[in-house]
């Protein structure tokens, strides 16, 4: 994927030069290994700032709402599905957007790499299917790229953008041999008490910084329910019940909208996998309504429509 960089710059430069767009939203090289920073460029000569590699995990759909400019944005499979969701929900206008599709082979999980590496990492590079980690003490380690992908990327079945105006490369082959719901089935199999303890343990480290919410392209409410004061839905302290209420309710707000882009988990400073919550709802939507979020512009979301043949299994 690292070879995309040249193409990314080339496209950005052209779009700015011929005034097709006012700004291009992409990534620039970060100051940390395995980190890139979302950025915008408005001048063609700045196009060389842009990069593309396995560290572009942040969902750029997040940066489109509330802007007035005509924008070109780079979009992986998940980003593109969130852009579709934004368009369907009237948060962005299709005709103000040039979507540059980036067929994706998954993003690197920096925490996974760090935890499997002894010593401090100085730099990380990618060559083909390998991820090469250079250590500060001079040594180096090599990983098979597939072994160090983000959890959601490893199980992703929509790597190609679903909507685009042009592509930076040929479409990639979609994964068909993955068991997308294994972790959720495991939780579903737990009895009530065990499940409760599982979630207690999962959410215990939460510091309520709301990085998950803010990293999520779906969380664009002007005032989030946790911030409302009239009425005040939940307490602001570190009480476990308030923390749980935040996570559970946020997950429900994303039901039928979440594309499992992994931004929430990636952003969490204390490493909580809150995707286990959103994924369960993703699974339910899929099984009950054969619904996958953000796949097409002309379909209303599952929870947004009523059909006489909707399943009513929950009604006894």
């Amino acid at each position, binding site marked *: 994927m690292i070879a995309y960089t040249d193409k990314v710059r080339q496209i950005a430069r052209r779009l700015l030069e011929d005034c097709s767009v006012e700004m291009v939203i992409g990534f620039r090289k970060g*100051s940390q290994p395995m980190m890139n920073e*979302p950025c915008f460029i408005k001048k063609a000569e700045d196009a060389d700032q842009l990069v593309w590699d396995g560290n572009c995990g942040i969902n750029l759909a997040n940066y489109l709402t509330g802007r007035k400019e005509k924008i070109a944005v780079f979009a992986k499979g998940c980003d593109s599905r969130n852009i579709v969701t934004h368009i369907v929900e009237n948060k962005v206008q299709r005709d103000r957007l040039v979507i540059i599709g980036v067929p994706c082979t998954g993003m690197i999980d920096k925490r996974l790499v760090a935890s499997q590496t002894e010593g401090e990492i100085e730099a990380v590079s990618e060559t083909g299917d390998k991820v090469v980690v250079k250590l500060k003490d001079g040594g180096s380690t090599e990983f098979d790229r597939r072994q160090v992908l983000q959890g959601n990327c490893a199980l992703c079945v929509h790597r190609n953008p679903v909507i685009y105006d042009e592509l930076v490369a040929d479409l990639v082959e979609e994964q068909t041999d993955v068991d997308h719901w294994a972790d959720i089935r495991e939780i579903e199999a737990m009895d009530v008490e065990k499940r409760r303890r599982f979630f207690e343990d999962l959410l215990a480290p939460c510091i309520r910084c709301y990085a998950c919410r803010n990293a999520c392209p779906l969380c664009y409410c002007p005032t989030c329910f946790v911030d409302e004061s009239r009425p005040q839905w939940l307490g602001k302290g570190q009480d476990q019940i308030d923390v749980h209420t935040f996570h559970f309710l946020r997950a429900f707000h994303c039901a039928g909208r979440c594309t499992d882009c992994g931004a929430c988990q990636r952003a969490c400073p204390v490493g909580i996998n809150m995707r286990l919550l959103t994924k369960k709802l993703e699974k339910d939507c899929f099984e009950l309504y054969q619904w996958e979020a953000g796949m097409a512009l002309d379909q209303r979301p599952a929870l947004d429509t009523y059909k006489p043949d909707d399943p009513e299994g929950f009604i006894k």
Partner: protein
Amino acid sequence: MKVINIDQKKWTKGIDTLGSSYKLIGPVAEKDFHTFEILQQGQLPDMSFTNTRLSPKEVVFPQSEDMFVYSLDQNDEDCNILKEAPKDYSPRVVLGIRPCDARAMRLVKLNFDTEQYKDPYWLRLYEATTFVGLACDQPCATCFCTSTGCGPYHEEGLDILLAKDGDGFKAKVLTDKGRQLAEASGWTDTADDGGAFENARRAAEAGITSKVATDRLRQMDTLELYGADFWEDVSFACINCGTCTYLCPTCWCFDIQDEVHGKKGKRMRNWDSCMFPIFTVHTTGHNPRGTKLHRVRQRFMHKLKYFVDKYDQGIMCVGCGRCVQQCPVNIDIRRVCDLMNSYGSENACAAQG
């Protein structure tokens, strides 16, 4: 220089002894990272950590803390009258706090301990705590403490400074509080270290390669810096989560909230963050810092300019690198500091590149 030698046996025994007169707090490995936690009896602090994910500011400034309690029962004589919440201010010791985090407490103290007002909660916990620091012999790539008036062997804010010495430690006692703790723990084995401590300090300082220039910040015009053209670029990636402020050892902003349970209630305070839009929003809906550019600028201006102007004690950052490591979108305070410091100078382009 005289230092105290603490071999592994004495360390274990000393901590065990301290447990009877102090509440012990130390670094504990948790899943993927270390946090400062209350140690159970017989539990040793894990002193092999590089740095904790969260700063130990919670020791004196809990994320959520009760201030007052009250009754809302009309039959109670003191209905609606606020009373002090019960508190534990018994002596406690933080083992293994890094020098940067200890200095951060001193910077935060400037806010909570003023001539006019004293914050009783913060100060009482601070005073009840003895700080046993652990010098940093293996700094991270994101550590830039030496640029911030701090350093891997910095002593400010510490009562005892430990440095690793084989399986045990060498200790430098810095205050009366430290002396009392050393006596209570039986760490009394003094010896002349022949300059080893000093050499280790120099080596550690040399190991910190990340540098930031702050020399021009003080003379800079506040409003010019406020109006600088780089803020849009700096703030673009920000998602306005509170990660940087919650991890930061020098961030102290808080919120005050009432909570009611039946007929009883409490007034509590919780960490707050200048990254959150509701931090400053007026009841009318007007928000003086209504955009993320405002909020990102506030964070950096507060740390690197307003604080400098207000106290003339350097920047409100100790170079621990946590915000750099944990920012989900890689906003790097070192880059911003360089942009600010070089703003308007000929080097502006160099710093941006």
